[in-house]
């Protein structure tokens, strides 16, 4: 089977859908990328076509037929029924479905590392879990009925990263990490870059069946907290946890039921099957958490950079179709180029800044150095940057 070259992304506006499109755009072998969603995409895209529709069978079929789509990537479990129905179109030869570790649930009697064949120990306890199980069942039926189509199911661990808005990440972003008294669950995450990398890997290669997508290494929550440099506080009682969580909700923090179970029993997954197909993870769980700490500390500095992109249909259409456009628009990853307003950064006093520098990677250091040089050029800061750069180069 030749590699897929015309791709439909269902859920383009989800963090991974957009990032996946960005990755696939760089691949010259991929001829067409079409994305559907109900919201505007949050990623700046060059040649991806965005169609704003409700995911609905007949419309998907029309899009698939018109564009001659041969691979469908789906990131939304609630739409499984419509997606599966649309994938029976003859051109479609591949379906990649992003599921999650919620499939396995959390329980005391769980195996320490879930392999893909294992089922959950307890029946699902929440609507989200039931929906996911239902979606996987539909996908599985579709795969058995269509042996000529390659169907991949990726079960993602909780993601962490800059674009992620998932329950575990919000929990880890609190100044104090709430835990259940007397429990220190094991947790395994996947960095957002790896999540997108795994999706791209599954889109480019033919992986049939189910694969766990989780970084190497399983940390205890207490370990993760200390990596983040935050105290873990057992604010939730072991009995009546749900009632306590309801109280927390009044304070403005919402802990979903699944996360409560995860805070009690934790979960680990066996990621070896996916690694055996040739995917190499960029980050281990520990590194992903360390990366999250860097992100959490830098967020106040880079906040101004976040408001970089807003989808505007007229502009996008002009850029794609107007004969006056001479070259592709410049889409560089960092919006904070020279001249960008960074009040938060410039207001930071040198001591605070130097504290933060040691957690930057070499690229960021270089960028920061050129920025500092062209703006305030404080000698203390520049010296600290140079020291760190020298140390990085030596390593």
């Amino acid at each position, binding site marked *: 089977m030749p590699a897929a070259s015309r791709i439909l992304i269902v859920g383009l506006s989800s963090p991974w859908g957009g990032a996946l499109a960005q990755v696939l755009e760089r691949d010259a072998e991929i001829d067409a990328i079409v994305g559907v969603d109900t919201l505007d995409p949050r990623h700046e895209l060059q040649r991806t076509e965005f169609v704003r529709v409700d995911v609905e069978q007949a419309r998907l079929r029309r899009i698939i037929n018109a564009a001659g789509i041969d691979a469908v990537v789906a990131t939304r479990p609630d739409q499984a029924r419509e997606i599966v129905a649309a994938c029976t179109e003859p051109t479609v030869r591949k379906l990649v479905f992003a599921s999650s570790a919620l499939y396995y649930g959390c329980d*005391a*009697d*769980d*195996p*320490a*590392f*879930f*392999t*893909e*064949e*294992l*089922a959950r120990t307890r029946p699902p306890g929440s609507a989200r879990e039931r929906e996911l199980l239902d979606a996987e069942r539909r996908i599985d039926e579709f795969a058995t009925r269509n042996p000529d189509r390659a169907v991949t199911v990726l079960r993602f661990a909780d993601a962490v990263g800059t674009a992620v808005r998932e329950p575990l990440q919000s929990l880890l972003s609190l100044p104090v990490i709430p835990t*259940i*008294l*007397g*429990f*220190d669950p*094991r947790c395994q995450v996947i960095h957002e870059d790896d999540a997108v990398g795994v999706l791209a890997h599954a889109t480019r290669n033919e992986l049939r069946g189910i694969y766990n997508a989780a970084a*190497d*290494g*399983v*940390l*205890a929550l207490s*370990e993760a907290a200390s990596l983040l440099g935050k105290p873990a506080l057992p604010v939730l009682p*072991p009995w009546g946890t749900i009632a306590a969580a309801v109280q927390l909700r009044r304070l403005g923090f919402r802990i979903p039921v699944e996360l409560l179970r995860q805070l009690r029993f*934790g979960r*680990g997954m*066996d*990621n*070896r*099957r996916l*690694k*055996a197909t040739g995917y190499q993870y960029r980050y*281990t769980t*520990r590194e992903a958490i360390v990366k999250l700490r860097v992100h959490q500390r830098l967020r106040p500095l880079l906040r101004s950079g976040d408001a970089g992109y807003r989808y505007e249909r007229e502009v996008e259409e002009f850029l794609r179709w107007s004969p006056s456009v001479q070259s592709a628009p410049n889409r560089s990853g960092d919006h904070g180029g020279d001249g960008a307003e960074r009040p938060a950064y410039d207001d930071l006093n040198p001591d605070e800044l130097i504290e933060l520098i040691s957690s930057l990677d070499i690229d960021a250091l270089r960028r920061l150095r050129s920025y500092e040089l062209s703006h305030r050029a404080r000698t203390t800061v520049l010296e600290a940057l140079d020291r760190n750069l020298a140390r990085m180069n030596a390593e």
Partner: protein
Amino acid sequence: VAEHDPDDTGATVELVLADLRAQLPAADPADLRAQLPGLEADRRLTDWGRSERIERALDRTVYDFLYHYWFRVEVEGVENVPSEGGALLIANRAGTIPSDGAMIAKAVGTKHRHPRPVHLISGSNLKRAPGVGMLLTKAGLVSPHPANLHRLLFDEQALALAFPEGPVAARKPLRERYRLRRFAGASLIESAIRAQVPIVPVAVLGAEESQPALGRLGRLRRLARLPALPGPPLPAKFRIRFLEPARTADLGERAWEDRKFVQTLTEDLRALIQENVLELVANRRSVWFG
């Protein structure tokens, strides 16, 4: 409240195990052991959640005291534990607090030419209890899920120690001591055959007197959801005898699916441990002085 029938529990355990067995991952053609992640240098816990620090602290204080002064452990045949590769150690009876498990692990850790860590396999409702469950995991307790055993024995080639009589055995009355119950954990033996690692039977003397089950407190026990109430361990003299391992490497890859064979082997191993336990009992003069 009617007393719970131990045989009934045994049947339930069997049912659960059959369920678990059905879920066993199929053997993968590609050897996934190469993909096993290593432990990063600055981690304080293993991926299992086991903490070197807590384990070492326990070992230096509690276990050391129990081993040398309280139970005055004597060891025979420790060379029967293989120096490398995975192996399943099976012993008679676990107390509520598996002090005998810790003693066997310590025997391998001190008396063996190549001291190796032993992973204690034990299913226990204590895992759900706040505080206790967390500590047990950190002290290295692994629950007896077939997937866990396979990962330990086959993938990590580690030593695992299990008590195949199951939790029922922890509350057999004192007069039934050293009469081994039917092995509820047939899946343990099955996992070892599947992983093609040797099975080392271990006969332990002393453990069954050190923690007699307090039968009359059944209601309290059920309230606390424990297999038996933990009493303070009595200072019985311990004697641990490691027996000749049963090799499973040349049985073939599919031997573990043969139920009859697995049961025969399980029964043989039980008989072997029983025989050795009785011999040890016969040769001792005193429960307390050996």
